[in-house]
Each structure stands twice: as C-alpha cells, then as structure tokens.
C-alpha cells in the first residue's frame, strides 16, 4: 500500500508542477476517471482517444492510486473504456488498434496492481462488468485471434502477443488469474500455433508465442480440464515440428552464447580463476528466459507423444530464421505462383555450404544445453533448470519411440558435452568424441553429473532423477536386447564413488535426506547388471569386468552393508529403508564373498602380492560356476513419471517465477513500443 501512496504522491507532485503541460491524452484519461460519461459532451471522445498516443504510465498509476470507492464510482467509465478498446481492435485504422492494445495492457495491469489482494471477480467487474464480461472477452479474444492470424503487420502481432502475455502474467500465481477462464473458453491456441508454423513469424514472435503457450498450459492444470493441455496433447502434425524448430532455434541461440562464455572460460582457466568465472559469466544470461523455454519443451515432451518424433528430427545446424530463404523460382512457369515455400526446400540445395557444418537435432542441442546447466546448480534458478532438464530426460527415457531413436545404431552423432573442469581430471582431448548412438551421450551426461555433484549441499533430488534415468535406459536395453557398446566401467565406478560419498557423509546427509533411497537405487542398478547382464552387455568380457569392479571396490559395499545393517537394527525412522538396502545387497555380497577368498588363495598359491587385472579376471572367469545368485524381483520395473502430485509444487513455483519474469520483461517492452508506434505511423 505504501508503494501506491508513494506513487500517488509522485503523481500529485508532477501533475501539480506540470499542470499546464498536461498532454491531451492525460486530460482525457482524467475525464474517464471523472464520474460523468466522457462521451456525453463529446460524442467523438472515444474515437479521439484512440488516436492519441497512449500514456501507459499515467493510466496505470491512475488506476493504482484510485482507492476502492473512487474506482467503483468510475466503474462504468472504465467498463466503457474497455468496451471501446475491444471495439477498436476490429477497426481498420492501425494506429487505433495499437493504441487500443496498449490501453488494454495498461487496464489489465493497473487494475491488478490495484487489487492485489482482492478476489478476481472484482477485477472482472471493474473492467468489464459481470453481466457483459463473457461477451466482452469473447470479442476481445476473437479480435486478437483475427489479428494474429491476419495478414496484418508483424509489429501488430507482436503487440497482440505482448497483450496476451501481459494478461497471463498479471497475477503471480497464474491459476488465480480468473480472467484466464475466458481465455480457456475462447481458445487462441490455433492462432498461436499458426504463428509458430509460419517460418518468418516464428522468427519474430516465436519466443513470445512459446512462452505464452507454456504458461497457458499451466493454468489450473491440476484442478480442471485445461483445453490447451488437451489440444497440445493431441496436436499431431507439422506445426509441432515447427514449434520444435523454434525451440531448437532458441536453444541454439542460448547455447551459442554459452559457448562463447565457455570459450572465455577455457581461456581463463589458464589464469587459474576458472571456476569463479563460470558463475560470473553465466549470470549474465537470463536464466529465467531459458526456464520458460525449458518449460515449454517439457510440456511438449510430456503432453504430446508425437513430439518425441520431432525431437529426433535432424537438420543441419542452420539458423533458420536469420537466413530467410529467398526463393528464386528456377523455372519461370511454376504451376501455382503462390507456392514459394515449396521451391525453397527444393532449393535448399543452395544452403550455405559449410563443411564444418555439424548435423544436429533438438535432442542433441538439449543434451548440450543440459550439460551446461548441470555444471552449476548453486543458485535456485539453476537448480530448477537442472531439475527440469532431468525431468525432461526422464520423460524421454520412458518413451519407447525416443528410446528407439536414442539406441538407433544408424543414427550416430558426435555430441560434445560440456564438462566441468576438475583438478583431478585432465582436460581430455574431448574434441574427438566418437560419433555414437545418442544414448551414449545421455549416459555420459548422467555419469558426468554423478561424478561432479558430490558436495556438501547435496542435490539429492537431482541424483535420484539422474539414477532413475539410467535405470530406465537400462530397462529398455534389457527389454529390447540392445547391446550397447558403451564403456560401462565408467558408470560403475561413478556409482561406486557415489556410494562411497554417501557413506562418508552419512551424518551430514542423513540430517536432510533419505540417503537409503538413493543407495537402494544404485545397488539395484548393479543388480540389473548382475542378473540381466546377459541380455544387454556388449561382450562377455564386460560381465567379467563388472565382477572385477565389484570385487575391487568391495570395501565400499562392505561398509555400506555395515552401515545399513546398523541403521536397520536400530529403531528409528530409517529402519525400514535401510533394511531394504541390506536385502538388495544380497548378490553383491555373494559375489564379494565368493571371489575374494578365491583371489586371495590364487595370490597365495602363485606367490604374488599384487594381482594384475588380467589375473583377477582369470580367477573370476574360472569360478563362476560355483557361485549362486538370488533372483530379485522387479529389478526392471520402475515407477513411471507423473507430474502430479509429486512435482506439482515444483511446477507451481517454476511457473510463478517465470510469470514474474515475463511480466517484468513485457512491461519494459510495451514501453519501448513507442518507437514501434512511430515506425507504424510512418507506414500508415
């Protein structure tokens, strides 16, 4: 409230000091906020109003600073203003349309600003009047729809999207924005999709459109039937592809930026202040904007199963929107002169010929992006982004089609993941990543995450998701008998190290997390390899290596067993989860207990103090037959991802933060629309 007063005071001061200089539009606003009908004396009042340049600031502040009663008194006039705004949208005169759009922006914002605490119905009443609200909003949405789909100017379309964004983000919690109920009834989904499906408009408005969709989908998504969710989920044709192309384009942009940073970061690495710098440099990026895009990507992946196919669609890394293909019809007699897009794909033969051009697809871009995001999870936005990335990966890993693509032996890619510089790790010559099925990159990414986040402020949630992604991928491989040529050893040692970390930080971690759950997942991953290794391991040697690795690191498993045994015998909250881990360790312990004595005796017999790897493998190979394992049920089962109820809170917060951010940017943008307006007036 104090803020409002301050603004009011400010207004009073300016209005008093600059009284003679008041613009005409301001005078007209004042007239509206007087009690009388402004059109009474001047029948052309509304016509004139929309010819004036909008003073957003004044209008908004005026709305804000009026107190409740005063505002109620001017309700009829405000209703009338709103009504005329909507009417004007249908007019030919573009300046008027622009002004009307801006006025609407101001109205929505001002009234909400005013009524932060008040219930939504007041706002609707204030703006449109209860009785007419439905009608007005229908008209408004229809006008916007036709403006967006029409042949009109691009700036106008941009402004429409801004208005919609403004409307969608006026409340912090999108679900409390009751006006959106009308947006649900009068869907603009198709209009937005049309924007996205057109190459040129996608370039201009793609970002806004995508964010708008992402937000609209999140309107009361758990409580009611959101038509946007339904529509997005059944969307099954080319436009999806375009949405994806747009997303990918966005990602590419951010990635490029990040890569620049990365370059800078590599160079500073030599000056030994590397790690400090990443945080610094990346701060400059608007993480929040990426959040919105990530959310959109998530919704697409999560809601629409056709979208998965699009994810995998490969295209050369060409900046689509920036190189507007100018179709030059080679044959002068094309059947229908109105089909330039067709010729240009044909002529895409004339695409820039860059031998270094790497083929890419959205999935690759996403993986690269994730690798950057996951590097640093210190602040909350980053943590959220990383979480969202992992959630998207979870959805992907669960999808049969996506898995099929990830494992397709014909589709090999070179994915350069960004790796965190670490002291004990050499900055490998990673430029020579072999080109492999994409699933290898996903596994690499997961391994990388596991290795790099063992810190005091343990991101337990992310670890859980990460291990689950690995588990889901292995389940798929087991089911489809895919023998991936992957260096599983890296994964094994990463996982063992993780267990080691959990053990050594037991006390700290237990205070905050249920580490047994994670430990159980990890041990069960090993159990997958032990019991079902025959179905998906690439060579018989790799099975030996698994045993070697377990035997070599037996201490970790021994300690883990001691720990869980201790906890499970004590009464306490961790009793049950710990005892689960003890049971899951059955086979691992069997292996250790079986082979350790054999190896020791082998060493004793041959008088070798330190056995080489080959020797151990030899012992392993010759002693399989006397080892019996216990078959564990359900190793290849997993809980399918579901947004509700577990993730609901996360997404609520995410949407809120995105809303706030978008609102901030939109307001800035609408103000700068003035420039645009000028350009407009010269055109028309």
């Amino acid at each position, binding site marked *: 409230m104090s803020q409002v007063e301050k603004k009011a005071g400010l207004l009073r001061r300016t209005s008093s000091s600059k009284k003679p200089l008041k613009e005409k539009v301001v005078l007209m606003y004042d007239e509206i906020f007087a009690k009388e009908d402004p059109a009474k004396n001047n029948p052309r009042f509304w016509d004139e109003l929309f010819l004036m340049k909008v003073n957003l600031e004044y209008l908004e502040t005026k709305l804000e600073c009026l107190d409740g009663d005063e505002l109620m008194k001017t309700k009829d006039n405000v209703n009338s203003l709103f009504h005329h705004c909507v009417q004007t949208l249908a007019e030919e005169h573009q300046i008027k349309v622009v002004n009307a759009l801006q006025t609407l922006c101001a109205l929505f914002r001002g009234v909400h600003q005013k009524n932060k605490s008040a219930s939504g119905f007041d706002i609707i009443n204030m703006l449109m009047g209860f009785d007419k609200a439905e009608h007005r909003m229908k008209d408004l949405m229809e006008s916007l729809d036709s403006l967006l789909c029409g042949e009109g100017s691009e700036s106008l379309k941009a402004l429409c999207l801004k208005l919609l964004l403004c409307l969608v983000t006026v409340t912090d919690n999108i679900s409390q924005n009751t006006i959106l109920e009308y947006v649900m009834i009068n869907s603009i989904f*198709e209009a937005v*999709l049309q924007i996205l*499906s057109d190459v040129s408009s996608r370039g201009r408005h793609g970002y806004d459109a995508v964010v708008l969709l992402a937000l609209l989908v999140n309107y009361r998504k758990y409580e009611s039937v959101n038509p946007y*969710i*339904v529509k997005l*989920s*059944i969307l*099954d*044709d*080319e*436009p*999806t592809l375009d949405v994806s192309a747009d997303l990918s384009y966005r990602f590419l942009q951010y990635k490029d930026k990040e890569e620049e940073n990365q370059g800078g970061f590599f160079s500073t690495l030599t000056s030994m202040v590397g790690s400090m710098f990443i945080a610094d440099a990346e701060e400059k990026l608007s993480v929040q904007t990426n959040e919105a895009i990530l959310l959109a990507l998530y919704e697409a992946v999560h*809601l629409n*199963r*056709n979208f998965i*196919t*699009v994810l995998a*669609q*490969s*295209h*050369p890394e060409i900046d689509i929107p920036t190189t507007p293909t100018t179709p030059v019809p080679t*044959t002068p*007699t*094309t*059947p229908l002169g109105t*089909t330039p*897009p*067709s010729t240009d*794909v*044909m002529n*895409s*033969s004339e695409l820039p010929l860059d031998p270094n*051009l*790497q*083929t890419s697809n959205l999935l690759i871009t996403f993986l690269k992006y994730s690798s950057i995001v996951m590097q640093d999870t210190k602040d909350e936005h980053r943590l959220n982004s990383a979480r969202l990335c992992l959630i998207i990966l979870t959805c992907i890993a669960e999808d049969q*089609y996506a898995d099929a693509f990830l494992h397709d*032996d*014909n589709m*090999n890619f070179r994915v350069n993941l960004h790796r965190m510089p670490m002291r004990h790790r050499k900055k490998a010559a990673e430029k020579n990543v072999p*080109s492999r099925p994409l699933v290898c990159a996903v596994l690499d990414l997961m391994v990388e995450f596991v290795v790099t986040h063992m810190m005091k402020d343990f991101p337990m949630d992310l670890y859980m998701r990460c291990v689950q992604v690995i588990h889901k991928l292995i389940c798929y491989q087991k089911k489809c008998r895919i023998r991936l040529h992957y260096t599983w050893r890296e994964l094994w040692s990463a996982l063992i190290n993780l267990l080691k970390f959990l053990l050594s930080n037991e006390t700290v971690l237990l205070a905050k997390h249920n580490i047994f759950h994670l430990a159980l997942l990890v041990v069960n991953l090993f159990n997958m390899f*032990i*019991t079902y290794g*025959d179905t998906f391991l690439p060579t*018989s040697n790799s099975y*030996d290596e698994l045993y070697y690795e377990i035997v070599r690191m037996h201490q970790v498993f021994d300690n883990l067993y001691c720990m869980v045994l201790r906890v499970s015998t004590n009464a306490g909250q961790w009793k049950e989860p710990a*005892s689960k881990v003890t049971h899951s360790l059955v086979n691992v312990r069997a292996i250790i207990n079986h082979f350790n004595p054999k190896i020791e005796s082998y060493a004793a017999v041959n008088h070798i103090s330190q056995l080489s790897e080959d020797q151990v493998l030899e012992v392993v190979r010759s002693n*399989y*037959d006397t080892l*019996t*394992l*216990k*078959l*564990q049920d*359900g190793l290849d089962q*997993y*809980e*399918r991802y*579901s*947004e*509700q109820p577990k993730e609901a809170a996360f997404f609520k917060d995410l949407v809120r933060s995105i809303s706030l951010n978008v609102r901030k940017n939109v307001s800035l943008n609408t103000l700068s629309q003035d420039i645009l307006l000028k350009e407009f007036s010269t055109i028309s």
Partner: protein
Amino acid sequence: MGDVELEQSVAQTEEPQQHTPSTASSVSISSSPSHSLPSSPSSGPYHHHQPTSSTPSPTHSDGPAIPSPSLGVISEGVTELTLVIDPEVAKKACQEVLQKVKLLKGEGEGSGFEGGCGPDPTLANGTVHNKPTDPVSVGGGGIIKPQKIHEEEDPESLTPGSVKSARRRQRHNPSKQSWLLRLFESKLFDVSMAISYLHNSKEPGVQAYIGNRLFSFRHEEVDFYLPQLLNMYIHMDEDVGDAIKPYVVHRCRQSISFSLQCAWLLGAYSSDMHISTQRHSRGTKLRKLIFSDELKPAGLRARRPPALTPFCPLPNATPALHGHGVGGEHGLSPTKRTHQRSKSDATVSISLSSNLKRTASNPKVESSQDEDLSSSSESLECENHDCKTGTPVRLTPQRDFIKSLMGIGKRLATLPTKEQKTQRLISELSLLNHKLPARVWLPTSAFDHHVVRVPHTQAVVLNSKDKAPYLIYVEVLECEDFETSSVPVRISETRIRSTRSVENLPDCGITADQRAVSFSTVPNYDDDNEAWSVDDIGELQVELPEIHTNSCDNISQFSVDSITSLDSKEPIFIAAGDIRRRLSEQLAHTPTTFRRDPEDPSAMALKEPWQEKVQRIREGSPYGHIPTWRLLSVIVKCGDDLRQELLASQVLQQLQVIWEQERVPIWIKPYKILVISSDSGMIEPIVNAVSIHQVKKQSQMPLLDYFLQEHGTHTTEAFLTAQRNFVQSCAGYCLICYLLQVKDRHNGNILLDADGHIIHIDFGFILSSSPRNLGFETSAFKLTSEFVDVMGGLDGDMFNYYKMLMLQGLIAARKHMDKVIQIVEIMQQGSQLPCFHGSSTIRSLKERFHMSLTEEQLQVLVEQMVDGSMRSITTKLYDGFQYLTNGIM
C-alpha cells in the same frame, strides 16, 4: 546368322533403292512405310487385296511375331483418342496425304502399285503395322500422327526429304531388292537387326524404312537399344537422324519417363562434342524440345505406354502394342471402364486426403497445414489435373527430384569425413521428405509407383575416395500408372504411431484393403463413402484414448518400494555361470551381422538381409500400412560418368539373353543404370550382397571359411548350392572380364551375394582403358586361389564344371557375336569415352571372340586363360597394390 546378315547388308547397300518410291513417301509423309516396302513390284498384285482388309493379322502374319491382340487394352487407347481427334481434321489430313501420294506417283516412274493403289495402300498400311497407340484407327489415322510430327517439329523437312528421295528413287535396282526385303519382312527380323541395318546401311531409304519399322517393335525391345538409337541420332548423318526422330518424338509424347530418359541420354551423349557444335547439334535441339515439354500428348493424354524402364518387359505391353488396328467400335465398353476408373481413383484420393485432414486437431491448424501440404507437394507433384490439361510442368517434378538428389551428392563431396557425409546426407534427405510424396519415381524400378518417403536414417554413404556416391532407400506406393494415378497424400512423420494403431483395428484393416482394391483393379462400385465412415470411426477410436493416456499421467504402475520386497517367500536361485554362459552364447549366435565401422558405413547396411530391412523400414514408416507399399533402393552417383557402365550393362544383358537362349547355365547379374548426364546418374543396387573386401575385413577369414560359416559344412546342401552358384557366376564374370577387358578388379569391386554368387560391379575400366596404365592386371581375368578354394580346389569336379561353363559360354557368345559387337560399335560413334581409346577397340573385341578357332582350340584357350590367370603374379600384385593404397583387402 549374324554373319549372313552382315554380308548381305554390305552387299546390298545399293539395292534398297528399288523401294524408294515407297520409302520416299514414308519419309515425306512418314505414314505407312512398312508395307509399301514389302509390296515391291513383284508383290504388287498381291498388294491390291490389302487395302480392303483393314484387319491386319490374317494377311500380314509375316511381321514381327505378333501375339494376338487383346481387345480390351487396344480399344482403350483407340477409343479414347477417337474422341479427341476431330473427324474433320482427320479427313483433311487424309486428303493431304492422298495428294502427296498422287504427286509422288506422278513423279515416280517405277512401282506401278502405288498408282494403282491410290489412296488405299496408305490406308491399309497405316492400319496394318506400326504405331501401336496410333490415335485414329481406321480412317487414315496412321498418317495423321506422324505428319503432325513433321509439321510441328520441322515442317521444312518435308520438301527436301521428298525431293531427295525422289532423286534417289531414280537409281534403284529392283532385282536385288527382294533379298533384303524378304529379310525385313521375315519373322527373324528383330530390333537388333534393325539397329544394325540402321547403323550400317548408308541408304536413306533403308534407314527411313527401319525408322518406321521401329514403330512395330515392342517398346521395351526398342528401349534396350535406346542409347544406340540416340547416339546414332546425335552423331550420324542427317538421314539416320530423320529416320529415328519420328519414333523418338512419338514415344516422348506418350511417356514422361521415356521423354526424360531421352533427354538425359541426349545430353550425356552430346557432351563429347565440341562445345560450339554441341550447342547447335541435333541432339541438343531435341533435348531442348523435350525439356520445353512441347512434346506433351496432343489433346487428351493417350494411354501411357507401359514401358517404364527400358529393360524390363511389362506383361501388358505386348497386347496393347498391336491392338491399335482394331476398329474403334470395339472399344466402347472398355472406354467406359477406363473413364470410370480414373474417376474413382480421383475420388479415392479425395477420400484419403480428407480422411487425413479430418484428424487434424482443429480447423485453423488444418487450413494452414493444407497450405503447407499443397505448397510443399506442388512443386514436385504438379497437381493431379496437370495430367489432364497437360500443363508445361509435366516433367518438372521428376527433374527437380533428380536435381535435388544430385545436389545432395555435390554438397556431400565437399565434406571431409565419411561420418560428416553420412550425417549431412541424413539431414538433407529429411528435408527432401518434406517435399514428398509427389509425382516422382525411381527410373531404375520395374513397376509404376510414386515415391512417398525416403527413410533418411537408412541412407549410407558408399566407399569412394573423392566422390560421394550414396545409397538411399526409397519408400514407394505401387500404382497403376504413375502419370495418371493420383499422388498419395502426405502422411506426417509424427503420425507413425497412430497409423500403426489404426492398423491394429480390424475394420480399418479392411478399409485399407478396399482402398487398395480401388487403386489396383477396376472398381465398378463406389465404396468411398464406406471407406470414409469406417475410417473416421477408426480415427476416433484411436484419437480418444490418446487423449486419455496423455492427460492422466498419474497412473503409477509400480512402486519402487515393492520391488525388493522383504517377503519374497521362496527365493529363486540362479547360477552366475549360467548368466555368463548365456551372454557368450548369445553373442556367438549373431555373428553374421557386420560390426559398424565408421570408415565403412555401407558394410553394415548392405549386409542386413533385404527382407529384414524391408520389414524394419515398413514398420517405421507412416506409409507402411498401405498395401501397395514397396521399398526400393538406388545408388546416386554424382560426379561419375556412367556411360561406360551403361554400355557394360547392355553387353551383360545381351550376353545373359544369349546364354539363356543357348541354355548355358551361367549366372550373371546385370544391374540397371540410369545415365542422367555425362557426370551423374543412378545405379540399381544389388540387394543382399556385400563386397568381398567387406567380407574379408569383417570376417577376418579366407573366403572358403566364410562360405562354410555362412552356408554350412562341405557336405550340406546349402553349401553345395552356394558353391554351384559361385561357380556359375564366376564362370560368367570371368568370360565377361575377358571379353570386355574389365579392369580394376580389386575385391572392393566384386560382390558376394547371400546365395553365394559373385557379382562384378564398377565397369569404369573396360575395353581399351585401364587404371593409370600401370600394367597391372595383365591376366585374362581375375581368378585368385581363394576363388579356386571355394570351387573345391584345382582337381575338384566343380572346377572342371567351371571351365566347362566357360567354354560353353564362349561358344555361345561367339555364335551371337554380332549382337554384342553392335552394341559397342554404335556407341563408339562420336564418343570420347576412355574405353574407346585408340583405334583398335572394336577389332580387338572381335578378336577376343576367336571366330577362327575350332571348339577344341577354344577349349585349349580356356584352359590357358584359367591357368594363366591363376598363376598370374599381377593379380596378386594388384591386390597388394590396392591394399597398400586404398586399404582394400
């Protein structure tokens, strides 16, 4: 036989003049030549009976072996056209022709029959032979069409032609004529002879006669010699050109495919001319004419000639060809049928497309999508109605399609590594997919189809050092006639899954079948409405649950907690050894797939059995559920001259026919070559075959061991069959390598198919050319000890069988030497190809047939060659050289 003919032709070069009156008329009027020739003075009286008999077959059974015409097909074409041609025009044309004939008669002194016959002979002739799809059946229609050609293309040729021939007529010598005439009339006179006379005879009359006679051969017979015909057209004198042109133009009018093929070949074979002459050459002009698409069918489209590809006979071609003579009245009912058919096709396509559109989620998206659809398909598709209206874009879609394939090849060549090439290829092809389906087809295929999709992820770059040939698989929908059948509607990639589920629904399966029925056979009833409704229900059934499964994502099926339940009552025990054993067993059981090798991406793709690949791709394709779905493959070569390949392929085909005819069980596999220009083209890949290099590199074992591994032990039937196949193919290719002097025979150029056949590919070095002239490969052919091992060793029966086959093959080939030589000889005309380097190419080729040797001597020769090749140090040297320089094992 060949000998005799040859001598005859030489001896009689002066003779045919006797017939110039008639030939002259055929040149100028270009009607009915075939029978004016036979009706020489001696046969004059006989001839008088003919005019009255408008039905050809009884009197003129002497033409080429004509199967009895099938009425249905014939009348289809005829009646369709009778509708088109204005009787007035026809009448007028008839009168013109008559006048010209009279004129000639007045001039000419000999051959009284012409005067006697007056208008009638032409009439009779027109109907009796030639011009299979000739528009007007009875009323002098035979005349109209060719005349038009002349009037349109080179009207001025009329007069000089007739003047010239009139002059020649003076010198004719009637007495000897009958020999040649009887030959030409005889059943034995086939395309091969026709081509040979066309090439050897310097007499314009004979040439013109043969030019007309071409009309009477089956399309695919002539198509085989298309390269020869066109090369003669380009490089030989005017008379030959004039003789050939009407036929070519006529065929171009009928078929898009033929038009394009001609244009491409013309371009390719003109390319050796000097640039200045080339620009004004006949070939270039004709090429331009074809590309300008002025040769579209006059009026309504004629029934499309069935020959799609030159070398594959289509069953329905034959009857159609000869049926034209039957009167139009026969055609009435079938016409109705055709008409109906096209109509129902159209409606089917409508129902199909609307079906698809309906599923789109909302009207607005739908409309925009429609625009996309139409715009994306238009450029290639050129719309359905164009085939009716004959808009100028008749050839454009296919040309664009080929152009873009070539464009990809060019761009790939700039990329340094195979990996980058492969990736780029895949992404480029996925772009290409946006333009499909369209009215485009693969010219190497044997049936009519429309290309609907390129499964881009399956494409591979082939091994080549600096060029970037690549292999693509192409999904097509077979159709009745690619020019008239409607182009399939685009199904989005993203619909894969729903279409699959549609397939599962029983009633939808039926609709698919019904759809197929209405496409392929003649539907007399309209089941479209039915298809509509059923399909819609299907879509609903599919779409609805989709929404459900998507929106309710909160079904948790399993909870992790229950997994390692504490209370698993009776633990099941498994032996670790078993797991390990199963692993190694399973790994051992899949040895026949090749490992993926980034340096040789094609090896794995080619090793996969074709049927499995088809199945796999079909499952992944949105079009896979359509019954007419087929998978084709093609190698796109950009930057390579395939003219020699084409030549070799022709020789191989000819030899194959000869061996078959002579019952020599030699097995060879000629593959289709499409020459698009002098540096680009397409090749039909051989399925289920990998190169011996790939076999050896992947399996790391001698060839015999590989055979044993793939087919079983020595005594198994599978092995014995494979071994026999190997021997039969080896004999064939050894002979071919010897006869054609095929060089560059390293193991990368020899394929081994799944049945054990070897197949030689890459005929880049034949006849007079050899790689870099290093003098390697001096032996007659390549026969390594590994090959001999597979054949069972030097003393084995199979090895003797091999030598025997060689001998038989050589004897058979020798018998028909002329047919082989002729193919090569004609192509030498005006050619700069390296295989014709030097002057002795043809002579040496002839010598290699060893006409003078007795069969005993030939046997000794074969023994010598086999012996020499086996012991040849140069073969080993060359393999070693290839291993060192190119890494080919």
